[in-house]
């Protein structure tokens, strides 16, 4: 099963549950008690999820950029090693330009 298939399957499952809750008055038998707050919250859940995902993504990206390490010392030591390597190899007969 590919990632796409799994994603579609989960989305369909969620959509079904959501639609049932949204239309519970006509879809579910009358004697199942659904609290009033469900009626208030269900219609806005998708929008809320979208906004939450957006906020999470931005936060994640911002944090990632904030903690993205710069390694200047790695560059410095590499430059040194490069000249070390080149002079050593030159001495041993490799044609380094």
């Amino acid at each position, binding site marked *: 099963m590919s*990632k796409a298939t799994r994603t579609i399957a989960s989305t369909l499952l969620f959509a079904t549950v959501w639609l049932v809750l949204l239309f519970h008055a006509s879809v579910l038998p009358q004697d199942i008690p659904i609290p009033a707050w469900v009626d208030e919250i269900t219609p806005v859940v998708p929008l809320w999820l979208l906004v939450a995902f957006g906020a999470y993504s931005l936060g994640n990206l911002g944090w*990632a950029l904030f903690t993205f390490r710069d*390694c200047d010392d790695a560059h410095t030591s590499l430059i040194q090693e490069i000249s070390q390597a080149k002079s050593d190899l030159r001495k041993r007969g490799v*044609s380094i*330009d």
Partner: protein
Amino acid sequence: MGKRSSTKVSVPEATGDKYSVLLPTYNERQNLPVIVWLLVKTFTEHKIDYEIIIVDDNSPDGTLEIAKQLQKLYGENRIVLRPRAGKLGLGTAYGYGAQEATGNFVIILDADMSHHPKFIPEYIRLQKKYNYDVVTGTRYAGNGGVYGWDLRRKLISRGANYLATVALSPGVTDLTGSFRLYKKHAFEKLIAATKSKGYVFQMEIIVRARQLGLTIGEVPITFVDRVFGESKLGGDEIVNYMKGIWMLFWDT
């Protein structure tokens, strides 16, 4: 396989492990001798049994000549040359090189010195500790980092990685890295299973590794981009990247 000594800490050489470094090259006349020198230095210092397989795609700048000189210097058992007739791509270069590999582990890294061989002992240590099938480097976690990237480049990189993570849930923090250690049979299986090219290929390998149930470990690495000159990332590459993620989303 050699026998472990019972009285002292076993050195990798004693356990009979051999690490084959696959180095596809195209126009790396300047960088090849240095990266080989760094590799030899690391392996020798840590007493690791190794070979370096250079797959040159008929570079016009004379990379193969330099490779031959290095072979004369370090020996034909250490430097193995597998030249090809033309620019045939990275994925096939790895496969071609792996055929000649006599080690039981395969290491891949970039020839342009953005990856430093000094991390290899850490890869080996981690692999041995948890018996990972794959060990990959990460620029984003732990002590990992990058040199030479401005904010825009960093944003693109992290954004791209985030997108790929959301779409593919790969289980690694750095999906496009190409500094990796593989068990040889795992590598051969993965090469046979992959279909894409370039850095999408690197992503695909990790995703397929997860698919096949292989274990993956991560080592923080420092990535020194373009030691000489500026790093550029064009619109074309970004489009190809998105296409790659889309393909993997449907195919894995």
